[in-house]
């Protein structure tokens, strides 16, 4: 299992990287953490003729506070950096909670924020979390930057709005409103495996302890992370009682998602897991929003 040959470029600036991408088009692949790309290459299922290694671009690795209370994460920030960062724990506790579920430390030490998003694996955790957090993505081309909302970013299995000549350079996480709660849950066959189903939940309560906003996003159920819109609508303006949560979880599992089957889980088993996880995650998120968990 050895990869096919390719030309290798290791630019030290984003501009240089973009120039290579522009030059080689579809033949080139940007190499971020490589934790999905390289095994695919080892199986010779991916055979890019050019790799543009982004790892030397040190400018793309950072975690910065945004003045609005949110966070800016450089695309080449490693998962393990995110995992250990106190600012992330404080300002984006959902991200902090999610990190240990992502594969294993050896993978997280290489895997990057931008790479995970751009790879757009529907079983990956962070894309679902990004949707729950209403993230924004800064995409850079030779003509300049554009911002894309997370709701428009993921198009399908391994597909995003990033053109081959562009790079995702930054992820912006907006601040969490007061009286918000969060939870990430997933069920995998073994610790660190891709989840059979996972869910990221963000909820905000209003002054009357009713649900002001809920975002519930599933992973590993379709060809991209799937927000449970109907379930969220059901919760809005409601008091998040156990019954309301249960009803929302059931709606999420039956109406909001259309899961597929594979050798590990049938569609109906996935729906069952989605229901259970949604209930657990919402319960925990609302408890946190109330400050009781």
């Amino acid at each position, binding site marked *: 299992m*050895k990869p096919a*040959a390719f030309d290798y470029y290791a630019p030290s600036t984003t501009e240089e990287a973009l120039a290579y991408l522009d030059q080689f088009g579809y033949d080139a692949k940007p190499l971020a953490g*490589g934790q999905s790309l*390289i*095994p695919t290459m080892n199986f010779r299922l991916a055979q890019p003729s050019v790799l543009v290694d982004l790892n030397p671009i040190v400018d793309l690795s950072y975690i910065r506070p945004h003045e609005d209370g949110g966070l800016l994460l450089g695309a080449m920030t490693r998962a393990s950096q995110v995992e250990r960062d106190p600012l992330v724990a404080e300002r984006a506790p959902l991200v902090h909670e999610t990190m240990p579920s992502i594969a294993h430390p*050896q993978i997280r*030490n*290489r895997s990057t924020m931008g790479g995970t998003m751009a790879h757009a694996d529907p079983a990956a955790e962070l894309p679902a979390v990004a949707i729950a957090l209403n993230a924004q993505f800064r995409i850079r081309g030779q003509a300049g930057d554009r911002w894309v909302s997370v709701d428009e970013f993921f198009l399908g299995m391994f597909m995003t709005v990033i053109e081959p000549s562009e790079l995702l350079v930054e992820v912006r996480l907006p601040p969490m409103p007061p009286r918000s709660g969060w939870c990430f849950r997933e069920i995998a066959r073994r610790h660190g495996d891709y989840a059979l189903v996972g869910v990221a939940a963000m909820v905000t309560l209003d002054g009357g302890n009713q649900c002001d906003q809920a975002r519930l996003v599933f992973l590993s159920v379709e060809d991209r992370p799937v927000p449970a819109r109907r379930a969220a609508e059901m919760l809005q303006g409601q008091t998040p009682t156990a019954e309301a949560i249960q009803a929302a979880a059931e709606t999420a599992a039956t109406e909001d998602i259309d899961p597929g089957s594979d050798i590990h889980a049938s569609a109906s088993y996935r729906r069952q897991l989605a229901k259970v996880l949604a209930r657990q995650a919402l319960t925990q998120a609302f408890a946190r929003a109330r400050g009781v968990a």
Partner: protein
Amino acid sequence: MSNLKTITVTVNGKHYTRDVEPRLLLSDFIRHHLGLTGTHVGCEHGVCGTCTVLFDGESVRSCLMFAVQSDGHEVTTVESLGDIDNLHPLQEAFMEAHAVQCGFCTSGFLMSLIPFLEENPDPTEEEIRDALAGNLCRCTGYQHIVDAVKLAAENMAVQS
């Protein structure tokens, strides 16, 4: 071989300059170009953890990196730990607790555990099992490895 790149990499404190093809996996470079065969290869798709080495001090799967990416960086392999007559405390604990059977996965476990124990000098059993989860072992059922890590943590605490 065409398309060679010259790289300079520090492995276990020693500088090497070599010409490599970009597609050469770091694991193959370490084993076959540098002759450091203590690092083993079990799957080449990033699951088994057998090929774990330290890259700039952090554990990584060397089958999921290219040798060219190590240019200017520091790689640490099992050969950097103790030697046969003077084992590292972690290696000693592995021997003491019978954490080795066929020995094929062992280097990967050791290299995953070195940074883990630095960060968590007094781990609980649950933390140890989590830390081991990125490495597969087919022989031991992990129990003696868990015992070894506990023992190592105790012994290292006494020594430091």
